[in-house]
């Protein structure tokens, strides 16, 4: 199967073999077992499990909050990337280094920190409560937690692309009379969109599956603030392995279809016509 570039360099068989064996043992076989386990169900049984009202409510909540969190990140992530690439100002290096905090911080720590901030008695939550807004224990709180844990994705995908766009292009456009919004629309948006979509997709995929940061702030009320991963956990605690597996399979399939669609969209943007 191999067509080597460089026959002098040894190790092809060894490294490829090791890679495949390791991946199979750790990732592929266990995932396959889940699909095999789910295939013991008839199509009707599977459908009944994944369309139960409680599951559908969790599905809507998980994908909806992950989508909104990814959109919010699309905005503030682009803002942060822009500020970090285009301007020099005091504290720039600290912000740049701290952007990755959500990846380095255990999600449970993020979860309890955000909950402490946004409960009705919390530092920010009390002001929201005065205005009659409930942040923690509502879908709003879930979105907030997901926005935190996926914050670095858009920044880190947009940042290098933005740094590579020559400033002269925008300056030329401005000198030719383009207004800032026109420069943004016709020069920056087309150049940044593929990277932006990648960041969006990564944030979305991570958000759908996220568990640790969400369960503290969510309140975990069935039908209202119960996310899909938690529902899998609940089924496992009840020894309902089949139910948990069916939901897991459904979740993976929906995620893959969505990622595939985003991928296709990206290709269409990158190769116009």
């Amino acid at each position: 199967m191999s067509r080597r570039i460089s026959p002098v360099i040894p190790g092809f068989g060894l490294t490829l073999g090791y890679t495949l064996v390791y991946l199979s043992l750790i990732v592929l076989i266990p995932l396959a077992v889940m699909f095999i386990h789910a295939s013991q169900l008839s199509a009707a049984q599977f459908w009944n499990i994944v369309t139960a009202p409680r599951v559908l409510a969790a599905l809507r909540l998980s994908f909806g909050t992950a989508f909104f969190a990814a959109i919010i990140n699309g905005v503030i992530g682009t803002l942060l990337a822009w500020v970090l690439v285009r301007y020099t100002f005091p504290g720039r290096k600290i912000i740049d280094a701290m952007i990755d905090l959500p990846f380095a911080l255990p999600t449970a720590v993020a979860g309890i920190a955000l909950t402490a901030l946004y409960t009705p008695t919390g530092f920010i939550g009390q002001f929201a409560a005065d205005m009659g807004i409930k942040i923690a224990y509502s879908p709003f709180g879930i979105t907030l937690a997901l926005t935190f844990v996926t914050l670095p994705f858009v920044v880190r995908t947009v940042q290098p692309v933005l740094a590579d766009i020559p400033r002269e292009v925008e300056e030329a456009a401005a000198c030719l009379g383009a207004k800032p919004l026109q420069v943004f629309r016709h020069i920056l948006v087309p150049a940044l969109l593929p990277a932006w979509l990648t960041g969006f997709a990564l944030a979305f995929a991570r958000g759908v599956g996220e568990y640790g940061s969400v369960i503290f702030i969510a309140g975990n009320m069935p039908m209202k603030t119960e996310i899909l991963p938690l529902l899998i956990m609940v089924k496992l605690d009840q020894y309902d392995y089949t139910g948990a597996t069916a939901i897991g399979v459904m979740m993976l399939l929906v995620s893959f279809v969505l990622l595939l669609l985003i991928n296709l969209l990206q290709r269409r943007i990158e190769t116009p016509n």
Partner: protein
Amino acid sequence: MSDSSLIAASSANAARRGSAVSRRILIGLGWLVFAFFLLLPLVVVIGQGLSNGLGGFFAAILEPDALSALKLTVFAVLISVPLNVVFGVAAAWCVSKYSFRGKAILVTLIDLPFSVSPVIAGLIYVLMFGARGVFGPWLQEHDIQIVFALPGIVLATIFVTVPFVARELIPLMQEQGTQEEEAARLLGANGWQMFWHVTVPNIKWGLIYGVVLCTARAMGEFGAVSVVSGHIRGVTNTLPLHVEILYNEYNHVAAFAVASLLLILALFILLLKQWSEARISRLRKNAAEE
């Protein structure tokens, strides 16, 4: 100066003045987002952890259950990170040094664990090794426990951190190409000599970067470990799980004290990351100048 160039110059000036205002607004907004999303949670964790003073803080961290959770977390990191380093180097080697059919699929498969929910990562091992799993009866016969015990925690940690090292190394090694290795071979080095004396020095900082990210995730993993842990205090609890237990017992000060410990580790990891990143970009710059 002609009229048209005057107009162009003045409009460029106006644009610059406009951009000076928007510059300030955007930097201000950037700071606001940073303070609101990143700084505030950090301050809350430390503040709540210290709310009973330093004594309470250390009491929570040095309590036996916390220490055994710390030990288990270190244990899981020490097994999963080296395994994923060996895997990452092997995977990056075959992906970057050779071309073969199915390479794109292989790269996708390496990234797969990133798009699988951690809870599913735990679930699949329960289905494999749990009492009612595929290997359940056999394991029971031989009195081996994987799920709800240490091996399960380690396996789940390995699963969620599989891609980190490979992901950092693949682009780096693809950029570096194969010339140096070929030269080493032609000068008579054997495979291992070539690897240790040519490849490893070249990829060292990328490797450190990958290890740092991998360690961060391994020490903080919650969902996957939560599924396969038996939640037995002092036995199968990692630090993040210990935080959850304390929090759910309304022992908030202790929960935030242990969380502060994890936060300090996270900040240390960010520092290491920054340092290895700076080294990588310096290497890239040197390579570009040559």
